[in-house]
Structure formats: structure tokens, C-alpha cells
């Protein structure tokens, strides 16, 4: 497959890229982890830095019409620069849950990785955070896979990011007693499902069952003659042989669909499809294939706000559309419908004062350097109506970034198994019945 042909067909060129006791095989009896509120949690980092003014305060009109109620028109000077997107139909996402309008990213630098790290570990960090190192404290994934009984495989925990850099490292920590054995499968779809990714791993030899038997026999022989003595430098998150076969089939199908042009315009929105939307699209593919119990996915494209306020608003609309699409896919996925908690929260906000960069509409761009506005965010908790308080808005200052991990831990029923003192946050009880 030629490079251009793959890119064209993949449609990515424009991106620029309740449990009961059980007995272990050892015969040891374990009490299963506490009762659950739901069997699946999808946590969307509505990230890139979203300011309250343009989101929940609707200063430029309702830029999030699929999530937020209201039909306020978009400001006239920027409305003509918005890419076309289908309008909402039916209830808005906030009607399926509780919207915290006074959520806080209370302390720590208002940097993207700081915010991601804080929300995924349930602990704030400071300027000493090492961008080249994994989190200092256990991640949500590790708490889940270490403490939930019976234990779950890595196919049940996913971290899906539209960024590389330091973000792949958020799937497990360096904390003693935790680490890669309890980490999440990490996937950066925009890199993996790209021409470069296809060139590297898109055309593998596939072995038939007889050949797989031969390989098993040969590997037993080869490994039986070698005793590994060295330290592993790049352990990563290990999947079992069976899980790797499932991953292999998933990736193979993904490349086949990309070649067949399925991803050219998967949501029927034409050129409006951006990186955030593709990232959530592939998160949906993972969800449909593996029905993970815990999935964290992020968006990032609103960060164009550093240079272009109008495009920030445009991408905020696309993030809104993508999150609603994710919710609808959850509700149409057997096994996850009506049994999934969806939480969405920005990692931080943006400054009240603009910087000096002006866009074509004369609007000034926005940074995020730690003022009060850059710490003010929202949080949406949506889920089944017998679990989550529906159509509730909390106006007061309630809840903060580090409350997400304890909330997910309780929703999935492993909160009681986490050692005391590890998580300073609290369960967001206001959102639940």
C-alpha cells in the first residue's frame, strides 16, 4: 500500500498529523472487592485548558450545545469561523447526570502534564514534577488493577491519548509495590493508525494454527536454553499471550478498515473532524472491542487558544460534539449501555487576561499561568438514572481535581482496598443517589 493511498483512505492526512467470594487457583479464598455502582467507567479528560467563561458561563454563546442546555447564539464576530457540525437532538448530556460548575484545580502548576498527572493519580504536584519520569504516586489504573478482586487484565484498563511526549508515561507509576504489572494499556491512535505506524507494523506475517504450535514448541526450546540475567529496561505493561492475540486482531482490523476508507469521515462531519474527534472515535473502537471496565481518554485541541481564540472556540464545539458522541456510543454498546459512568473534566482552565496574540477576528489568545480563572473548571458526572443524580447542577464551589480517583474507585468498588492515606481527595457524593 502506497503512503499517499493509505493516508487518503485513512482520512488522517489533514490532521498533520457485584461480586461474590472466589477461590484462587492456589486455593486461597479471597473476599471479592466491595459492591459496585457501575461495571464500567469512562473518564474523559476534556483537556487542553478550557476556561469557564467560554464553556459553562457561555460568554461567547453556547459553544457546548450537546453537553449544556441552552440555545444562546455564538458571538457574531466569530460565528462565521465555526466549522459546520450537526446540532444536538434529544436531551443534552448534562441532563443525564450532575454538572459541577464550581470545580477546582486547587493547587500546583496549571500545566497540561501537571493537570493530567494530578487527575490520574489523585494527588496534586508542584514544579518539581519530572516530565521525563513516570508519576511519583500510583495511577488510577494501578489502584484498580492491584486492589480490585478478582484481578483484571490490562485489557480492562486503557489510557488513550492524542498526545505523545510525557503522556504515554501516565499508564503506570514508579511507586513501590505498584508499577507496570498493574498499569493500563496505552494507545496513541493518531500515531498508531498513521502512515508511519502502518509502515512499521501494518503488514505482519500471520501464522496459522499449525505454525503457532510450531512456534510454541520452538520458543520453549529456545527459552529453555537461556536464563535471562539482566534488568529489564523497558518492561512496559505486559499483556498475556491470549490478550496479545486479541490486540493483534484489533490492530489488524483497524488497519484493514483504514485501508478500506472507513476512517475517511467516520462521523459524517466532513472536514470538521479534528484530532480530538479522531481520538475519541478510536476510543470508541477500543470500547466496542474490549468493553473495558476503566478507560481514560483525553482531548487536547482547544490548546490552540495560545495562538487563536476563535479556533479555541471552534475546537471547544468539536470537543463537545465528540463527548456526546462517546456517550451515545456507550449507550449503544451491549454490556456498557446503562451500566457506565462517564466523567468529564478539564485538566485546568485558562487565564482571565489575554496574551498579545490576535487572531483574524481580532480576538486575543489565552494562556494558562496559574491565575484564579485558570484553576476554575467544571466536572460532569453522567450515568444510569438509578446511580447518578440526573439533570442536577451544582453552582457552588464543590469538588476538585483530586476527587476524581476516589470517586471512580468507589464507583467500581475498590475504594476500601486502597491503603489509607494514599488519596487525599473525597468521593463526589453529591452526584450519586
Amino acid at each position, binding site marked *: 500500500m502506497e503512503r499517499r493511498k493509505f493516508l487518503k483512505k485513512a482520512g488522517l492526512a489533514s490532521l498533520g498529523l457485584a461480586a461474590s467470594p472466589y477461590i484462587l487457583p492456589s486455593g486461597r479464598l479471597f473476599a471479592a472487592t466491595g459492591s459496585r455502582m457501575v461495571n464500567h467507567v469512562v473518564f474523559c479528560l476534556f483537556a487542553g485548558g478550557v476556561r469557564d467563561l467560554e464553556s459553562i458561563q457561555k460568554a461567547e454563546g453556547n459553544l457546548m450545545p450537546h453537553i449544556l442546555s441552552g440555545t444562546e447564539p455564538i458571538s457574531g464576530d466569530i460565528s462565521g469561523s465555526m466549522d459546520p457540525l450537526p446540532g444536538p437532538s434529544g436531551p443534552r448530556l448534562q441532563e443525564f447526570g450532575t454538572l459541577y460548575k464550581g470545580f477546582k484545580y486547587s493547587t500546583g502548576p496549571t500545566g497540561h502534564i501537571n493537570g493530567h498527572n494530578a487527575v490520574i493519580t489523585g494527588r496534586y504536584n508542584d514544579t518539581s514534577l519530572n516530565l521525563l519520569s513516570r508519576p511519583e504516586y500510583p495511577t488510577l489504573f494501578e489502584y484498580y488493577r492491584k486492589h480490585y478482586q478478582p484481578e483484571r487484565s*490490562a485489557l480492562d484498563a486503557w*489510557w488513550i491519548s492524542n498526545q*505523545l511526549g510525557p503522556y*504515554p508515561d501516565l*499508564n503506570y507509576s514508579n511507586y513501590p509495590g505498584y508499577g507496570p504489572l498493574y*498499569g*493500563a*494499556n*496505552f*494507545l*496513541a*491512535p493518531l*500515531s*498508531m493508525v*498513521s502512515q*508511519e*505506524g502502518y*509502515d*512499521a*507494523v*501494518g*503488514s*505482519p*506475517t*500471520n*501464522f496459522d494454527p*499449525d*505454525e503457532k504450535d*510450531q*512456534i510454541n*514448541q*520452538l*520458543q520453549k*526450546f*529456545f*527459552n529453555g*536454553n*537461556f*536464563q*535471562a*540475567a*539482566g*534488568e*529489564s*529496561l*523497558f*518492561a*512496559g*505493561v*505486559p*499483556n498475556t499471550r491470549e490478550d*496479545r492475540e486479541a*490486540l*493483534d486482531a484489533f*490492530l489488524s482490523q483497524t488497519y484493514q478498515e483504514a485501508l478500506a476508507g472507513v476512517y475517511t469521515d467516520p462521523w459524517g462531519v466532513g472536514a470538521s473532524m479534528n484530532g480530538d474527534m479522531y481520538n475519541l472515535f478510536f476510543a470508541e473502537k477500543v470500547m466496542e472491542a474490549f468493553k473495558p471496565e476503566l478507560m481514560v481518554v483525553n482531548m487536547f485541541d482547544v490548546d490552540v487558544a495560545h495562538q487563536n481564540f476563535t479556533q479555541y472556540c471552534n475546537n471547544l464545539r468539536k470537543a463537545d460534539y465528540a463527548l456526546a458522541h462517546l456517550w451515545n456510543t456507550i449507550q449503544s454498546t451491549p454490556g456498557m449501555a446503562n451500566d457506565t459512568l462517564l466523567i468529564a473534566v478539564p485538566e485546568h482552565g485558562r487565564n482571565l487576561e489575554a496574551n498579545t496574540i490576535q487572531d483574524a477576528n481580532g480576538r486575543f489568545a489565552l494562556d494558562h499561568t496559574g491565575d484564579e480563572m485558570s484553576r476554575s473548571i467544571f466536572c460532569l458526572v453522567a450515568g444510569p438514572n438509578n446511580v447518578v443524580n440526573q439533570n442536577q447542577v451544582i453552582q457552588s464551589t464543590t469538588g476538585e481535581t483530586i476527587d476524581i480517583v476516589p470517586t471512580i474507585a468507589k464507583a467500581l468498588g475498590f475504594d476500601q482496598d486502597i491503603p489509607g492515606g494514599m488519596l487525599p481527595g473525597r468521593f463526589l457524593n453529591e452526584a450519586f443517589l
Partner: protein
Amino acid sequence: MNMRAFKLILLLIPIIWACEKPTIYEVDTLQVYSDGGEKINRKTSSEFISIAFADLFGSAPTAAELSNFNLVYEAFGDPEFIEDLIVRNLINDPRSDIPSQSEMKADPESFVQEAYLSLYNRPAQESEVYFLREYIESTPDLLPTTIYYGMMTSEEYRYY
């Protein structure tokens, strides 16, 4: 012995000594290989990719190829899964220098020795040659790529 004879002997000793052909100890040129047990360093992802590529193609990957390999390593959290995919892609590449099935069947022992030297960077031991020769001869549909894949995804191949 008189004094004259004694002086003559003293004079001849160094002459005889100097005329004696010196003894030179020589050794044959010998290629030294690491034993499998001496491989204690796990290859980094870049090392694994570059070595696998060189082992199969006889040359280093281009900067673009290496960049693509590194990208997929970063883009997925299970490096051994990615290594498996990369190896299967390399083996599937028509440029790979893997002997044909007929070559393997014609001389299994040479095939095994070549594979060990190429991939494990050491000669195969007698027991290894014996096992694999028997396996090749008793498995009619066995392909060389299956053996290469087995070796390249073995523990020993991850170390140097």
C-alpha cells in the same frame, strides 16, 4: 682442560646461542563469541529494532524507518507486543535475507549454524543443532521464517 680450550668454549657459546633458531609460538585466528549465558544486557527498543533490521536485511534501517519504529513503540504501552509486530513485519518483507525452505531442508545443520551466528551471534551448541535438525527433518511443513520468528522473539534475542 687447559686455559686455551676453555677460552675457545667461552667464545663459541654465544656464537652457538646466536645461531639457534628461535622458538615462535603461534595461535590460529579465532573468532570469539559470547556464550548465551554471558548476555546480561537487555536491548533497548532502538537497539532491538536496529539489530533485528540489520540481522534480516544486512544493513541499518534508514532514519525514516527507525523513526517509524520508534513511533509505534511510543504509541502503544506493551513494548513486547510491538516488538512481536515489528519482527513479523520484517520477516514478511521481501528484502529479508532468510534462506528458503529448500535450502533449509537440503542442509539443516548449516541452516541452524547460520541462524545462530546471525541472530544469537554465537555458534549453535551440539545439543541445539541436534534438536533443530531433528525438528526440521520431522516437520515437513516447517518454514524457515517460523524458526527465525521463534528465535527473534525468544528471551536470548532480547539480550546481548
